[in-house]
């Protein structure tokens, strides 16, 4: 990418942010999607749900091969067992949600006005367990991630429709807090999420190409070949923050939940396609 093009991209991104500060979430989302579509005019909107595989053909070829025997299949089976397992009072996790299993992923993250905070799927699962006198699952435990992998799999094909209601006190504030986090520089390397995933999409960091944030939340949790195990979206936040040499926040901290809320909203309109497989 030429220096002129990179400069143009930076100016575009700055204008994008300034304009966005005066607009609402829907205007932000439209501008966000428009930016990536102008950067990659040959990629259809829906294809961004595949993350890096939408823009890197070599990685895509390897991904299609691994998808012939997806490494996350075992996690889905474990998750299904956990979901339908009888809890001591005879109910199962599904009973807390009172929705068809294929819809559950689409209900989160959402702003809970009575609690004044963003509730994610993982938090809701633990709320259910605690209400039934069970210990909560660790947010980085394979039990929790397998459960969300199963729910992600069941929801494949559903369209992401995160809601930020102006009528809900705090929803807009949580969205704005997530957005501010996304564009704030941090760490010894002084990078914002946007520096890599907006300005530098398609460029290399060591041996990896940077993916677009548009589409990130649709395919989590993911199986990471590097770790031989599944990770959640918020574990990836922690990893990225560690990579820019900042101190990561706790999983399901208010900062991460607001960021997840913002990112899910930015990917509205894309098809859910989790769980995924990544390097």
């Amino acid at each position: 990418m030429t220096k002129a093009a990179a400069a143009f991209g930076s100016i575009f991104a700055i204008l994008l942010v300034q304009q966005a500060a005066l607009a609402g979430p829907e205007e932000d989302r439209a501008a966000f999607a428009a930016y990536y579509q102008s950067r990659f005019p040959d990629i259809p909107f829906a294809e961004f749900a595949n993350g890096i595989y939408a823009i890197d053909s070599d990685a895509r070829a390897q991904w299609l091969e691994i998808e012939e025997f997806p490494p996350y299949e075992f996690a889905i089976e474990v998750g299904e067992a956990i979901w339908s397992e009888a809890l001591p009072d005879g109910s199962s996790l599904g009973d807390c949600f009172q929705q068809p299993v294929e819809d559950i992923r689409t209900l989160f993250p959402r702003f809970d006005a009575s609690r004044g905070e963003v509730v994610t799927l993982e938090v809701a699962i633990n709320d259910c367990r605690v209400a039934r006198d069970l210990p909560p699952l660790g947010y980085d435990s394979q039990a929790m991630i397998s459960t969300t992998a199963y729910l992600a799999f069941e929801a494949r094909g559903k369209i992401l429709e995160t809601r930020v209601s102006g009528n809900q006190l705090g929803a807009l504030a949580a969205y704005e807090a997530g957005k501010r986090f996304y564009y704030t520089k941090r760490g010894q390397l002084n990078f914002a999420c946007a520096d890599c995933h907006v300005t530098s999409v398609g460029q290399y960091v060591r041996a990896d190409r940077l993916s677009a944030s548009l589409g990130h939340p649709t395919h989590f949790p993911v199986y990471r070949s590097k770790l031989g195990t599944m990770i959640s979206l918020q574990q990836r936040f922690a990893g990225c923050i560690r990579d820019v040499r900042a101190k990561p926040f706790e999983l399901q901290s208010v900062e991460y939940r607001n960021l997840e809320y913002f990112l899910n909203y930015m990917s509205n309109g894309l098809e859910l396609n989790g769980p995924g497989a990544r390097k």
Partner: protein
Amino acid sequence: MASKIKVKAKLSGDIAEIKTLMLHPMETGARKDPDTGALVPMHHITQLTLTKNGEPIVVANLSTAVAKNPYFSCKVRGAKAGDTLKISWVDNLGATDELETVLG
């Protein structure tokens, strides 16, 4: 107990492409438990065998370098529809698992 092996076999002409995914923890014996500090005992597949109609066609002697939940694939010449393929493994603790599938 249900087998923890998955297999996909595709026949084209007389060549069968076999892909398998096996559930197995892989411990080299050199890793320490993060909570107790004790060494996690070695636990991995030591021999993987693929037979066609009872006759061994692949015997793999594996060591601590084998992957966790290993994926293994191979192509077999001289296969035909109706052949019975069996994938089986033995690990260093003596546990075994196997799965049979019919090429079709």
